[in-house]
């Protein structure tokens, strides 16, 4: 019975089950081979602007932003019905702007008394030459219709794939050079802010350890009293916990020791982040005294405002200052199926304000590696799709809104800005009448856009994004 101490792996006597299993594996491997081995590209594709930035900020306008009305505005009234009192659906931009600025944006400056007596926040049209726009970003180039399903389209923009499981921030946490080796335990993670950013922080089973930080918003840092993580614990309590863990882990199998050990190790790593998250600059609802180069919380909130975006974008800036390389901020709801003429303008104006505010604030924040945060940051706005199904004369559906079920909703007009980007550019022109691309070579895969954004902060994408990164986001 137990007459052989050597494993039976060399025995030629396979059972029937073993033979069938081997055959099944062979068949399965053959079936899989075409899927695995056919490369999307023959050569590695890396941007010239690889690692040009140290920070990436993505604003996710959740629900399906009617982006042509903002960033590709010179189209027929059917496709951009948001007009000024004179009936124009565009407005002049700053000198050097090649894209058409929507009339929906405010053109009024906002006083900033906390920054100085004469200080004003310029409106977005005044800084439009800092922004480059791609007018034909789509999930499926060549497809006649768009993906009008929120469920799947959100996944596409958050993960790069129809059925993707690893969000963009999870990819960054897993592949960014700063998190390799010991960096994983010490470097500040990527951050998702707002429920509408949650999918960007999703992780496939097995990748839970790469899940980034998530915060609902500034409110997560308010009233940090007894419920906070910064209660100092006495030595006896720490010893009790540590001794218990040590005994428990020692009693386990080697396999389980590894799994349970992750938890014990993670607890040990909390201390560093606990101190970081106690920093007063995160309490944006208060105005504690801070070092001058950080700028005060009050000043930040004055610039970004109190709309659906302001507090979250301000928090994102703080995360950069704590060392995070990437933040996704989500806000919404831009899914304007009805009453769009009243619902969209305020939240479009707020979104415009964030871009203008970032252009204003980031150059005023010195970066630890020299220069300013503007020099080292790439910023983008994304959404799951655009909108359509609108009447010719009104540009709206029967509920005075717009939908996402046809061909036109597949083309998003998305803005990009930041120090490494040459602003003012426009790529991907569309027909004013049909919204179809003028040049089919000027259509940009959304995954390629995401790849470019990741490569801009030095994340290699060749192993998980088959699409080529889109260099046009850098303008020029």
């Amino acid at each position: 019975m137990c007459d052989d101490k050597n494993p039976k792996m060399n025995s030629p006597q396979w059972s029937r089950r073993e033979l069938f299993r081997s055959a099944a594996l062979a068949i399965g491997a053959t079936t899989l081979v075409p899927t695995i081995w056919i490369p999307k590209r023959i050569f590695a594709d890396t941007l010239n602007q690889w690692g040009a930035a140290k920070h990436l900020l993505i604003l996710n306008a959740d629900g399906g932003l009617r982006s042509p009305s903002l960033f590709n505005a010179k189209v027929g009234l059917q496709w951009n019905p948001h007009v000024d009192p004179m009936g124009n659906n565009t407005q002049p931009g700053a000198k050097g702007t090649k894209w058409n600025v929507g009339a929906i944006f405010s053109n009024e400056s906002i006083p900033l008394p906390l920054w100085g007596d004469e200080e004003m926040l310029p409106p977005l049209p005044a800084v439009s030459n800092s922004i480059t726009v791609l007018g034909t970003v789509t999930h499926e180039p060549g497809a006649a219709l768009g993906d009008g399903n929120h469920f799947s389209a959100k996944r596409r923009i958050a993960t790069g794939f129809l059925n993707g499981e690893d969000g963009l921030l999870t990819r960054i946490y897993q592949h960014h050079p700063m998190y390799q080796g010991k960096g994983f335990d010490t470097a500040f993670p990527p951050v998702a802010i707002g429920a509408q950013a949650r999918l960007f922080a999703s992780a496939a089973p097995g990748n839970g350890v790469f899940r980034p930080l998530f915060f609902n918003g500034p409110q997560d840092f308010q009233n940090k009293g007894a419920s906070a993580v910064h209660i100092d614990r006495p030595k006896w309590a720490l010893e009790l916990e540590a001794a218990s863990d040590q005994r428990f882990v020692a009693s386990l199998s080697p396999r389980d020791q590894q799994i349970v050990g992750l938890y014990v190790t993670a607890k040990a790593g909390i201390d560093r982040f606990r101190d970081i998250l106690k920093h007063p600059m995160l309490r944006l609802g208060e105005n504690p005294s801070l070092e001058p180069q950080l700028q005060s919380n009050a000043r930040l909130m004055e610039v970004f405002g109190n709309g659906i975006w302001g507090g979250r974008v301000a928090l994102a800036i703080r995360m950069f200052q704590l060392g995070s390389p990437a933040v996704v901020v989500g806000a919404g709801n831009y899914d304007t199926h009805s009453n769009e003429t009243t619902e969209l303008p305020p939240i479009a104006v707020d979104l415009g304000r964030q871009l203008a505010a970032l252009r204003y604030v980031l150059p005023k924040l010195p970066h630890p590696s020299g220069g300013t945060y503007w020099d080292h940051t790439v910023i983008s706005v994304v959404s799951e799709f655009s909108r359509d199904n609108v009447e010719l004369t009104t540009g709206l559906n029967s509920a005075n809104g717009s939908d996402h079920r046809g061909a036109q909703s597949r083309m998003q007009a998305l803005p990009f800005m930041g120090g490494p980007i040459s602003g003012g550019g426009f790529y991907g022109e569309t027909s004013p009448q049909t919204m179809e691309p003028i040049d089919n070579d000027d259509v940009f895969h959304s995954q390629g856009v995401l790849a470019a954004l990741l490569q801009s902060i030095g994340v290699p994408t060749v192993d998980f994004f088959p699409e080529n990164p889109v260099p046009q986001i850098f303008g020029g």
Partner: protein
Amino acid sequence: MNRWLPIVVRFEFALTLMIGVGTWVGCEPGGIDPGGPVHLDQDGGASDIAASVDALAVCAKLEFDNPIDQALCPQLQGVGLSPRYADPYSVCRRLAIDFLGRVPSWNEVTSQCVGKSPAEVLDVWTTRDEYVELARRRFADRFEYNDGIVYYQYIVALDALVQDLYRGKLTYDEFVIEALVAPAYTMRHFGESRVSRAFQVFLGRDAHGVERSDLQRLWTMWVPMYAVDEDFDFGLEYYEATVYTSFCTPPYDELFCTSHFYGKHKVALEVANPLLFDDPANILSLDELTPAQWEILKTPGKVLTTLPMFHEYAVTEALNRLLGWDAATRLPEVRQSLVEYFVGPAQLDIREVEKVIASSSLYLQVPQPADDVVEPITGEPARWRYSPRKVMEVETWMDSVQSITGYGIGRCDPRFAYVRGGYINNVYQYVDHEYPVADPNNNAPDMRYADVARLLGGCPDHYESFRYTGTGVVHTLDQESFIQQMCWSPLAGGLSPGGAFGVWEKPSFDLPSLNLAMTHWTRAAWSREMRPEEVGFVEGLAKACGEKGAECEPETLLPHLCTAMLKTAEFYHY
């Protein structure tokens, strides 16, 4: 109910349960050939053919009430080994977490569990709402409930079906047949996704391209139509599930409404007016469907339940979930025995399958590996010879913390991610839900529990977040924050001794008080008595804190002890 414990094993296990104080009493492995450990081939069976025959002969003489134990016999008793049972306290904790969704109270351990067989315990615990609640949560994930996408009443109805399944009112097959045409399913998934999701949930794999394109025709007539719930002043918009019979007007029914891949099946109803596609008479609401029409519409489930892997996956899912590892693949004979039990004596009652698993030696084993059976290639202890450690799900962990501290911030409603509402008589009202109520004037839900759970990977909305089991610094930081909140809440003590801990009135660092506190917390958090080394720790702490100048503050003894115990790995894992 069949009590599937072998006679021999039942005696040993009952003896173990009855003794169980502090010391571990398990079954010593017996009859091991002094020549060395048994080596297994990759099927997990004994590699020596002659030994296999002997093993079967041995097993033929034994009686087993549990089909898993019977299937496992050739590898265990058949080769002279014995199951290695965990101590009853560990077993009780394991059973409570898996079947009640929280750690057991000490009273539950001592009065409802220790001294009884697992089958007896589960006969009671599976009748509790907590057991059904676990199933509701699982199926909320599988069906991806989201009341922002699907009409909330549809989700209520599908959830009711799940409850019927786990209260024994439906067989598993009946449940699946109903569920796949429930509006919460047909209005959540469309086109090929209806096939894809059904396969993932009930067959454990995605449908391949041909299956998706073929079988989706069984759902062709299900169409969402814009509707308004008139119970609200301005109406509550939603997509109503309707049966658009025109889509299957002959002869197009052969093309669009007939599946062939698993036999020819047509799902088409008589079209009232075949000449006018959009004739309202051709569009049937749920209320208008007759029982005979429903029988036709239920064809997708009927096809699925006849597939050979259908019952196999049902038991596979339960087996792997309860054991915490892929036992179904590694022990196909066990899986097969469960399938035969499921379709036979259990009469398609999925609860019986779970009870049988949790009463088997596979589930009841100690978590320490044995060196008497090794894997052939790696030489590591055989995977099936010991019970793995599992990690509590998020809601289970939160509910356990809340039940121990006596303080809570509520619960999630597995059906509703958001809770819909609308104006009724000019007052905004939320629909009935199972969250705590934040404002009784409008039934507003208290989402504090859900907010914390979603940070940790639970209470997903199945739209922007999905369930995950996290680890890492970030996740642990969020856990610590929750524990601190529970342990320092006013009810839990804070600066007021006693409170919900209620064990003593004046905690201090003298030895009797510390012994009392540690005994209470060891029982509450770890479901056992203190071990000698822990007794020694308490004595040392009492002595150290008794010395002049020691920084031991009685006022904060309880919250700090609470935090320490609830942060241990032994609490989080089971």
